[in-house]
């Protein structure tokens, strides 16, 4: 399966298992979603469980919260992560705090799916990676899969979770892994082991990282698209990197990170999102606090620049092979 099919399969599995699961969002119903993630679901489960919504992100989210309070398990979709901002009040002030402010009387078991990330010439409003806006919010969980196998297992776990989960899907990975070499032929998931996805139910617990490559020379922390870029660039440079795919940012698998950095003594953090106050800053601080005496070089961040995501300058902006390669030389030199 590609990642779209894996997500579709996760939704299908959960809708079949739990009559409380409902899918809603702009174009998700009859049409099956602009990325096809919900294709076929309305036909199979009916219009009261899979339905198109008006174009109002605050409405989609607020309505989903109300459905969750009733006892359903809504999976709303925000068409692009760039358009999640109108829903911020509902997510930050309501979804994240409902359990806390009601001391558990009301809960918010919703999973907000949204395509994120660049590398597709999406320009300013189809490329953003707003994960740090959500990792900063107490009460939300934030998940970013990097493979079809993980996307399905994590989405099932997110839907089953009784807390609100922001589930960001790197759209650059929908059809195939992307290693950052935009000028080479596109790959697809059928040639990748993680494209092997069981058709039935399985889950990958939130809060568990995946060691995408074991190594001794340095630790690379990445998630989403950047996992594949990190693997390719490290291989090209012949660096024995340990690449950790975080998978879930909150809750974070700190034990895996800590063990790895204590072993390698070096840590590089890669994300597409802009640098200042990005999630990399939190990772860097955690590594510094917990692994200080094991560090042989400063923790290095390779990220998007602190600019809006540009259109024509996409490959100068994207933290790709050139920038990561230079950073690798720097961190291994110390």
């Amino acid at each position: 399966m590609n990642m779209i099919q894996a997500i579709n399969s996760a939704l299908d599995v959960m809708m079949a298992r739990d009559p409380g699961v409902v899918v809603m969002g702009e174009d998700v119903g009859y049409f099956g979603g602009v990325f096809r993630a919900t294709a076929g679901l309305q036909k199979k489960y009916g219009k009261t469980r899979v339905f198109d919504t008006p174009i109002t992100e605050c409405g989609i989210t607020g309505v989903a919260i109300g459905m969750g309070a009733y006892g359903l398990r809504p999976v709303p979709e925000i068409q692009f992560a760039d358009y999640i901002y109108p829903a911020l009040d509902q997510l930050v002030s309501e979804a994240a705090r409902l359990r806390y402010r009601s001391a558990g009387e009301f809960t918010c078991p919703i999973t907000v799916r949204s395509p994120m990330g660049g590398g597709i010439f999406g320009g300013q409003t189809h490329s953003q990676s707003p994960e740090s806006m959500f990792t900063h919010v107490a009460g939300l969980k934030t998940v970013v899969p990097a493979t079809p196998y993980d996307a399905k297992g994590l989405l099932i776990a997110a839907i089953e979770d009784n807390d609100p989960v922001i589930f960001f899907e790197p759209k650059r990975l929908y059809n195939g892994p992307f290693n950052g070499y935009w000028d080479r032929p596109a790959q697809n998931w059928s040639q990748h082991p993680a494209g092997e996805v069981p058709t039935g139910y399985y889950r990958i617990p939130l809060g568990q990282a995946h060691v995408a490559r074991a190594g001794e020379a340095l630790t690379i922390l990445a998630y989403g698209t950047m996992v594949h870029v990190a693997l390719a660039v490290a291989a090209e440079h012949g660096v024995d990197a340990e690449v950790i795919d975080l998978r879930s940012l909150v809750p974070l698998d700190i034990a895996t990170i800590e063990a790895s950095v204590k072993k390698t003594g070096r840590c590089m953090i890669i994300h597409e999102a802009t640098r200042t106050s990005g999630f990399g800053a939190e990772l860097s601080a955690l590594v510094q606090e917990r692994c200080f005496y094991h560090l042989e070089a400063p923790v290095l961040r390779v990220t998007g620049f602190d600019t809006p995501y540009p259109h024509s300058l996409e490959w100068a902006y994207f933290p790709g092979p050139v920038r990561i390669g230079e950073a690798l030389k720097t961190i291994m030199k110390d």
Partner: protein
Amino acid sequence: MGDRSRANLPPLALHVPEPRFRPGDPVDFVDVAVPPAGAQPRPDPATPAADFTDLAYTLIRVLGDDHRAHGPWDPKLGPDALRRMLRAMALTRAYDERMFRAQRQGKTSFYMKSTGEEAVAVAAAFALDHEDMCFPSYRQQGLLIARGWSLVDMMNQVYSNRADRLQGKQLPIMYSAKEAGFFSISGNLATQYPQAVGWAMASAAKGDTRIAATWCGEGSTAEGDFHSACTFASVYRAPVILNVVNNQWAISSFSGFAGAEATTFAARAVGYGIAGLRVDGNDALAVYAATAWAAERARTNQGPTLIELFTYRAEGHSTSDDPSAYRSAAEPNAWPLGDPVRRLKDHLIALGEWDEDAHAAQDLELAELVKASQKEAEANGILGHGLHQPFETMFEGVYEELPWHLQEQRAQMAAEEEASGRFWTKK
């Protein structure tokens, strides 16, 4: 500026609304149109939404100046139901008085009264089923009281004491009472509006028979959530009642800043294709009748209703507010729709089912009830007298389970408290 070619055009002028009366001004509300009670038609609850334009611009009234019920909206409630309603409204007022005073005495940090708006919540609660879900704003404490919720429990929340069901996590008056069908109140305005629509949609999708009702002030109708909620409610014909409590004031801003100079709030329903009713919010019978009508409409799958409840915020916005700084002190007494408690009382007296002595005796009894409840609540502690909840509860309920980072922060705090020797660590 230097463009001479447009010099012969009149300059544009920006209109910034201004209330008619400011502090010190004499007040007359002659511009507030008050149609006679009983003159408004009562359509069948299955009437198409397009036919509600007239009812969105008038005022549905039942209780006339003669204290009698008039017209097709008279809900024809028996004297026992009327007395129960009057009692819940008077109790809401007595509770407000007492808690306001408790804040002034430093027993809690904050309070908000609903004085003059008791009918809006109480009469609506009487017209709904107990199982219907309410998504209130912070000024519908009358819902809880009408549903027989414990005053002591409400006070415990206001005091953030050890019996507070919300564990001292919430600002006073942000109640939550699932068993009473009273959704957790949020400080963020109008967010409950789409949530109520979602709850109603879920009920409909599940083939349930319960409906949802929500309330916001006229000021909050300016929020984007109001628009999205009305759109969703209309699109999916959600079984929901959307109440707009137009009490004329949003803190210091008069209703003109929410758009009231140009139209009514009920009239917004017309544009969404929702049935819209504009109701005398100080007329408990009209509020009851309109809510019952909207509930029937919702329950029979005819869709949502938007009800504007035209009333007046008789007191300050909150204990942190001084209304004499922005409006004329003469306004509350000049309000042409009077006082909801007095109007219902006078109606019962006119029916020969109540009298001044009974009312005075009830007021005394309710004051004693509130006082006794207060005593009971204060035995659980008042704000500021130490920590009433174990401080570890601060970390609970952020998530279903405590993740490692919160476990660490909890342990760090425990260590800090231990080292500091602060008195509550020894509890």
